[in-house]
C-alpha cells in the first residue's frame, strides 16, 4: 500500500479497537481484551521511544526506566493508601486525577535529570550510559525493601480510582487505554510536524549542521528526551493499573531492549510502526509457546524465546523498515 493509505488504515484500526471487546466476547474469550490492553500500553511506550529514536536519532537503551518510574509512583502511592501510612508526611492516595499526572511528571523529571547527563555524550557512549543509568534505577527499586524489593509490590487496593469511570472493569479500562493511545499518538503526530519536530529530525540527519545553523542542539534533544520519558511514564502508570502489580523487572535493561525491538520490528521513525511492533512482539510472546506446543515441538515450546534472537538479527540485516515498511510503500524513493 502506498503511504497515502496510512490514514484510512489507522481509522480502520481504531474502529476495530473500539469494536474489539464485543468481538472478543463473541469469540467467547474476554481475556483477549486484557491482552490487547497490554499491547496498547506498550504501544504508548514504543511510540515515545520512537520519538527520540526514530525522529531524534538518540539510541536510548534505558527507556524502560521511565516506564518503571511511572508504574512505581502508582504502586507506592497505592501501597500507602492501603496501608494507611504516610509518605514524606503525606497520605497515600489512589485518586487517579492526582496519581496519574504525578506518575507522568516524576517520569519526566527522571528523564530530565538522567537525560541532562546522558546527552553530554553521543554515539556508543550515549547508548552505554543510558543502559547503565537504567540499570541503576533497577537496583534502586530492588533495594526498596519496603515496597517489595525484588519480589515486587501488589496493589491490594486495586486499580486507581477515577471519578465516573470504573477502572476495575476490564472493558472500561481497555477503553481508557484506547483513549490514551489515541491521544498520545495524535500529540506525537503534532509534535513531529511542528517546528520542534523539524528541528529534531534535522538533528538526527545532521547534528553538526544544526549547530552551525545556530540551534542549541543539546536543549532540543533534552526536551525530546523529557517528552519521551513522560510518555513512557504514562505507559507505566497504565501498566501498573493493568496488572495491579509492579516489580523491578519492569525496569530491567532487557525490557528496554524489548521496547527497542517493538520499535524496529514495527517500523522506526513512523509512529504507526511502534503500534504494529508492540502488537507483533506481544502476540509472539503470548502465542509462540502455544503454537510450538500445538505442533508438539516440546523443546521449542519451553525455549520459544530462542526464536527472538535470530528474528531480531534478520530484521536488522534485511528488513530494517519493519512491518510498516512491508505494509506501506513510501512515495518519493526510499528514506
Amino acid at each position, binding site marked *: 500500500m502506498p503511504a497515502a493509505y496510512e490514514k484510512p488504515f489507522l481509522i480502520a484500526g481504531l474502529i476495530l479497537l473500539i469494536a474489539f471487546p464485543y468481538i472478543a466476547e463473541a469469540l467467547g474469550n474476554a481475556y483477549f481484551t486484557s491482552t490487547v490492553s497490554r499491547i496498547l500500553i506498550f504501544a504508548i511506550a514504543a511510540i515515545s521511544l520512537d520519538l527520540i529514536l526514530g525522529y531524534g536519532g538518540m539510541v536510548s537503551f534505558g527507556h524502560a526506566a521511565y516506564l518503571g518510574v511511572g508504574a512505581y509512583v502508582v504502586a507506592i502511592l497505592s501501597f500507602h493508601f492501603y496501608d494507611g501510612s504516610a509518605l514524606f508526611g503525606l497520605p497515600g492516595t489512589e485518586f487517579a486525577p492526582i496519581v496519574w499526572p504525578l506518575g507522568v511528571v516524576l517520569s519526566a523529571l527522571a528523564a530530565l535529570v538522567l537525560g541532562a547527563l546522558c546527552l553530554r555524550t553521543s554515539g556508543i557512549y550515549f547508548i552505554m550510559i543510558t543502559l547503565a543509568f537504567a540499570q541503576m534505577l533497577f537496583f534502586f527499586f530492588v533495594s526498596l525493601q519496603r515496597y517489595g524489593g525484588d519480589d515486587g509490590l501488589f496493589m491490594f487496593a486495586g486499580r486507581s480510582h477515577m471519578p465516573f469511570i470504573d477502572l476495575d472493569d476490564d472493558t472500561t479500562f481497555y477503553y481508557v487505554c484506547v483513549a490514551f493511545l489515541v491521544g498520545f499518538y495524535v500529540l506525537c503526530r503534532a509534535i513531529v*510536524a511542528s517546528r520542534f519536530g523539524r528541528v529534531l529530525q534535522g538533528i538526527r540527519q545532521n547534528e553538526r549542521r544544526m549547530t552551525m*545553523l*545556530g540551534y*542549541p542542539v543539546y536543549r532540543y534533544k533534552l526536551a525530546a528526551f523529557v517528552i519521551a520519558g513522560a510518555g513512557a511514564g504514562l505507559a507505566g502508570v497504565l501498566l501498573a493499573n493493568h496488572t495491579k502489580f509492579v516489580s523491578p523487572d519492569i525496569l530491567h535493561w532487557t525490557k528496554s531492549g524489548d521496547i527497542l525491538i517493538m520499535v524496529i520490528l514495527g517500523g522506526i521513525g513512523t509512529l504507526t510502526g511502534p503500534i504494529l511492533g508492540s502488537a507483533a512482539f506481544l502476540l509472539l510472546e503470548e502465542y509462540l509457546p502455544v503454537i510450538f506446543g500445538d505442533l508438539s515441538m516440546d523443546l521449542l515450546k519451553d525455549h520459544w524465546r530462542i526464536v527472538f534472537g535470530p528474528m531480531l538479527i534478520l530484521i536488522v540485516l534485511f528488513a530494517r523498515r519493519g512491518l510498516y515498511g512491508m505494509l506501506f510503500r513510501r512515495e518519493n524513493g526510499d528514506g
Partner: protein
Amino acid sequence: MAETPLLRIEGLAKSFGALRATDDLSLDVAEGEIHALIGPNGAGKTTLVNQLSGELAPDAGRIVFDGRDITRIRAHERPHLGLVRSFQITSIFPEFTTLENVALSAQSRTGHSFHFFWPVAGDENLNDIARQTLSSVGLEADAGRPAHALSHGQQRRLELAMALVLKPRLLLLDEPMAGMGPDESAFVVDVLSNLRGTVTMLLIEHDMDAVFALADRITVLVYGRPIASGTPEAIRSDPAVREAYLGDEEAA
C-alpha cells in the same frame, strides 16, 4: 577612514600534537569586502574556519567580531551574531526537500523552536523566505525534490543557500565551488558578486579564476601562517607567493 574591521584575528594558534595547524595567525577582514584565503593543501585553512565558527577552540589568540571578543562564544551562538559558515564537504539534510532544508535554516533566525503544535510545513512566512533564497541560487525549480536526489553542484548551491538565508554579516565560505563544473562555478561567482557590499565574505577556494574574479583582498596561508596579504594584483606578482603556491597551481 580607518574603520574597525568586521573580523579581526589576533595571534591565533592551534596545534595537534606536534603539528602547528595555525601558527600565530593574524588577519583582518573589512566590512563589505570579499577576502579570499588561499594556500596549498594542509595550510590550515579549514582549521582556521573551524576556529572561527566555534567548533574548535584555539590554543591561543583572539577572535574579535564586530568589536566583540567572540573567542569563547559557543558555536551555536555565532550564527545569531551574524557569523555563518558553509561546509567544504556538503552538509545538508538529505531526507528533507530542498525547500525544507532552507526553511529549517531560516527557522533558526525566526525565534526559538519550542513550538509543538502547529505544522511547520504550513508556515508560509518561512516558506516564502526559503523560496526567495532558493531563487537567488537558481534552485527554485527543485524546491520539492528530496535533497539527496540533487546533483553534486545543486547540493553545493543548496549548501550556500542554507548559509545565505541566515542573513549573515560575515560568511565563511569553505570551498563553495568544490567539484563544480565551469558553468555552475560561473553562476555561483555571479551570486556571490551580487552580494558584494551587503555580505562580508571570507572565501576559501582553490579555483583561482573565481578567486581573482571575486576577491577584494587575498591572504596566502602556508603552514598555518599568512605569508602575504594584499590586493589580487599584489599577490599575483609576489615572488614568495608564486613560489609557495601559484607555481604549483600553474603546473597543475
